[in-house]
């Protein structure tokens, strides 16, 4: 029944589900799951366009990273147009964005990061070290373990400070 869709009560839950699916990469949030959990009296045929509309609105808001002025203007326009949203629904959407904006934005930023991210850093300073392959003794040396990316790839580096304890070195003519 159309009346079920117009209210705001289940909409909050729906927006959460949509956000989990679209932004936070949570698997298994299907149209049928959302319908049966939140709008059980609504038929799938009626639910589908409603869901698409709400998803579209949420994605527009998130993609533009709307501030509260933009949000107000956008939602007001949505309430005025044919096939838009009710004022109740607009209020629920507004409240949802205000409380979830930061987290959604964080997820969107992460989706746009393709380089290795730095997940962790550990370090140790050794007073003296000697390598099997070089006869030299370097004192002191900092050994740093960098943990990259989503799969915890670990990358170790050693750096030997130049004189006066400063880390080396941009000058390719000096031996590092």
């Amino acid at each position, binding site marked *: 029944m159309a009346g079920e869709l117009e209210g705001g009560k289940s909409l909050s839950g729906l927006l959460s589900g949509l956000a989990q699916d679209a932004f936070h990469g949570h698997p298994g949030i299907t149209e049928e799951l959302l319908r049966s959990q939140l709008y059980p009296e609504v038929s799938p045929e009626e639910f589908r366009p409603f869901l698409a509309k709400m998803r579209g609105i949420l994605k527009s808001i*998130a*993609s*533009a*990273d709307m501030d509260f002025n933009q949000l107000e203007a956008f939602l007001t326009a949505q309430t005025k147009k044919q096939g838009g949203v009710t004022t109740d629904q607009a209020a629920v959407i507004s409240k949802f964005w205000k409380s979830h904006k930061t987290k959604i*934005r964080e997820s*969107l*930023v992460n*989706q*746009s*990061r393709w*380089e*290795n*991210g*730095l*997940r*962790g*850093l*550990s*370090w*140790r*300073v*050794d*007073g003296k*070290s000697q*390598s*099997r*392959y070089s006869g030299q003794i370097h*004192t*002191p040396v*900092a*050994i*740093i*373990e*960098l943990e*990259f990316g989503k799969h915890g790839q670990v*990358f*170790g*580096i*050693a*750096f*030997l*400070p130049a004189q006066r*304890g*400063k*880390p*080396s*070195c*941009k000058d*390719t003519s000096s031996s*590092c």
Partner: protein
Amino acid sequence: MEGSASEKPALDAKSEVTNQLIDFQWKLGMAVSSDSCRSLKYPYVAVMLKVADHSGQVKNKSFEMTIPQFQNFYRQFKEIAAVIETV
């Protein structure tokens, strides 16, 4: 980003595992827009490490940090620098 010692295994200083740092390059970037978010406005620090492995082969390793991650990274290195002075 975790910074200090954790339950992870102790750092292994074997020369097969540890690469020697030759050069450190950085870039401060601003991601303006992407397919997932038109208004991204995300500043980041990108780092390119040039290292030599145990065989002497030089390779590059690049990675990216958010500003808070970079601030932690910088703080760690300041600590290293301070400790290394005392050794």
